């Protein structure tokens, strides 16, 4: 039935089940930041707890640790997850990006080997895309994989690799054809991070914690079985993964809706001193989060009806990253003099958490492909403007 915006009784039942489980299991006190070593382990433990309830990745088939849920149920799960203030997903590179990519391109053996451990939080994944000379221009990558017998020998230098400082595995693209250029001759390979010839060096982020890392490949050897898809197919597979990242999975609307709800509460506490324009910005933040949610339900419906997500993913990425930044800027303005106080500072009070969120929101328009690159993609692939 067209344009039917009611949840079914089964979907309501599913929501109730998630809500009850979260109420019983979400830690009462917030975990330490997942950008640091201690917090990383706490978050890994939380993934195991989730998996014990079979909630690791609800959309996956049961044999891989999922529940075979559809996309609407996924959105319901996320709503209840954020509503319960559950911890951030330390394995998002795995469950949201590599997981769906494996479903599409992986062999049966690869799926059986990697997906259950991913859903269970036993193996945490990092991305290995960017290189020092290959940022927005990703096709300029130089890191190579040379075939020797039944192994690849990896050489090169990856950087800005989120979670790599503490993760177990990374996935990335390497040049397997030495005479190839640009997006040709690239291959998608899975590499263990604690492995001979792999050296990881954390990079401290703006808040001082090593939220990302450099990875040096110094003749690291991995079996050919670690290749995803065919040799030379790496660019295509990487772009599919990037589509998941910008598209439906990485940033659930519920995350922003809960943040907007907290922003309204913050405004209520500060309304007597707040500049009049702030109420409008608060209301706008709520509307933008709602618009993102509605658009996501619309996309999910389209996908369930057999559609696909292509360049629309770029529209999503621009919208959520900019709404998140503006929402947090509004919070910082409301907090005024206390906005600069670090969590745990003597007078932090209700400023607690907003600063961390603000810093993270600043990264949004940069990671997963800068918003400038996204706007180029929208203009060229959706609107049909000529390439520069």
């Amino acid at each position, binding site marked *: *039935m*067209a*344009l*039917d*915006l*009611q*949840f*079914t009784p089964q*979907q309501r039942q599913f929501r109730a089940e998630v809500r009850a489980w979260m109420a019983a299991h979400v830690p009462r006190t917030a975990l330490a930041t997942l950008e640091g070593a201690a917090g990383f382990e706490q978050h890994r433990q939380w993934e195991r707890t989730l998996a014990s309830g079979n909630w690791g990745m609800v959309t996956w088939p049961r044999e891989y640790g999922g529940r075979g849920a559809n996309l*609407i149920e996924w959105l319901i799960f996320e*709503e*209840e997850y*954020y*509503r319960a203030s559950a911890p951030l997903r330390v394995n998002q590179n795995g469950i949201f990006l590599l997981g769906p990519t494996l479903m599409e391109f992986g062999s049966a053996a690869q799926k059986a080997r990697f997906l259950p451990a991913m859903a269970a939080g036993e193996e945490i994944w990092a991305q290995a895309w960017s290189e020092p000379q290959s940022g927005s221009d990703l096709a300029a990558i130089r890191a190579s994989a040379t075939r020797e017998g039944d192994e690849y020998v990896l050489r090169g230098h990856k950087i800005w690799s989120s979670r790599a400082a503490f993760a177990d595995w990374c996935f990335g693209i390497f040049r397997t054809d030495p005479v190839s250029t640009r997006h040709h001759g690239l291959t998608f390979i899975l590499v263990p991070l604690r492995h001979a010839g792999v050296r990881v060096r954390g990079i401290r982020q703006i808040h001082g914690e090593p939220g990302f890392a450099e990875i040096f490949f110094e003749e690291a050897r991995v079996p050919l079985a670690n290749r995803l898809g065919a040799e030379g197919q790496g660019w295509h597979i990487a772009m599919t993964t990037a589509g998941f990242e910008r598209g439906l999975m990485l940033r659930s*609307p*519920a995350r922003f*809706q*809960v943040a*907007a*709800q907290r922003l*309204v509460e913050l*405004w*209520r506490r500060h*309304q007597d001193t707040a500049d009049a324009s702030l*109420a*409008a910005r*608060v*209301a706008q933040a*709520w*509307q*933008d989060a*709602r*618009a*993102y*949610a*509605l*658009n996501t*339900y*619309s996309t*999910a*419906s*389209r996908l369930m*009806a057999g559609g696909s997500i292509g360049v*629309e993913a770029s*529209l999503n990425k*621009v*919208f959520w990253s900019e709404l998140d930044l503006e929402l947090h800027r509004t919070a910082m303005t409301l907090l005024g003099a206390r906005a600069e106080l670090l969590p745990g500072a003597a007078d932090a009070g209700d400023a607690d958490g907003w600063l961390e969120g603000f810093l993270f929101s600043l990264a949004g328009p940069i990671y997963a492909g800068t918003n*400038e690159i*996204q*706007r*180029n993609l*929208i*203009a*060229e692939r959706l*609107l*049909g*403007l*000529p*390439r*520069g």
Partner: protein
Amino acid sequence: MDFTFSDEQRMMAGALRTLLDDICAPAALRRVFEGQDGAAAEGRWQRLGELGLFGVLAPESRGGMGLGDADFVLLAEEAGRAALPEPLAEQAGVAVPALSEAVSAGAPLAEILGRAAEGSARIAVAHPLCPYANVPPAPTYWLVCQGDTVSLYEAAAVAAVPEASIDAGRRLVRPDLPHAGGERLAAGEAGRALSARIANRAALYTAAQCLGLAERLIQLAVAYAVARSQFGKPIGAYQAIKHHLASAQVRLEFARPVVHAAVARLTELGAQAAAAISHAKLAAGDAADLAARTAMQVHGAMGYSWEVDLHFYMKRAWALAGTWGDRNFHARRVQSLVCGGALALGPEETFT
């Protein structure tokens, strides 16, 4: 939960687009803007009636199609895309459902409802949120919302003062409202409710027109950016132009589902409905506004000229932003609902 439209719904919108490409092309709009329209307005009204469009929301027993708002919203988008001068949305999306509701409640207006559904009874709508009404060619009735009463008057009973607008594509008048007479549709609490539903419908279908306009404006700007060359290449190859247009497209894409979701709230009158309708009007109005601003900049001096068609659509976007609740009204309504505590805000409340 299904956010998609059916093939039938899309086909009907496609049929209207084809018709409007024929009867409401830019050349036709130019004649309207230059006062050379002659009998064309009458012809357009007839053609819309021949497709049965005025009766989309009327019950089949009254000669209508008996369809719902999810069917009509795509038609309103098409009317916006073409900058149709005639008030299809007010007649078919607002007046006909209001009459239909009154007839169901026992008002002796079944015959007029039947004629409104075929377009022979032409109904102008007066409401405090729309001080200047876009009226059909030769209106026969006024549907008037005043205080807590909603009444239907013969056209002759209402003095309509023409108002000159920058959007010469609409037939704009200020109704001088009568104090007595007319056929009462509803009064008291029922009158307030009907009046609120009339305003919500009109705001939503105005928002839908804004979506169509935004799409048209972006399309015109893209076509110009591809055709126009400077420094040896099409201006659309430069990132400055691309990024402007991409931003306009983002705003449009995230307004669309807000408008479509509000369709499901048209029969309600609570806080969720008010927030959904106002959000739709704001999001679509902002999308059309940004598309207009962007399209003009992309066109350069051409966009500031009378000879390029762009201004017909730009002026409609400006006009619709201020009608059926301007930005001040809808932004204040959302703000008081969101900040004031009347609205349940969490992610689990999106569809409750």
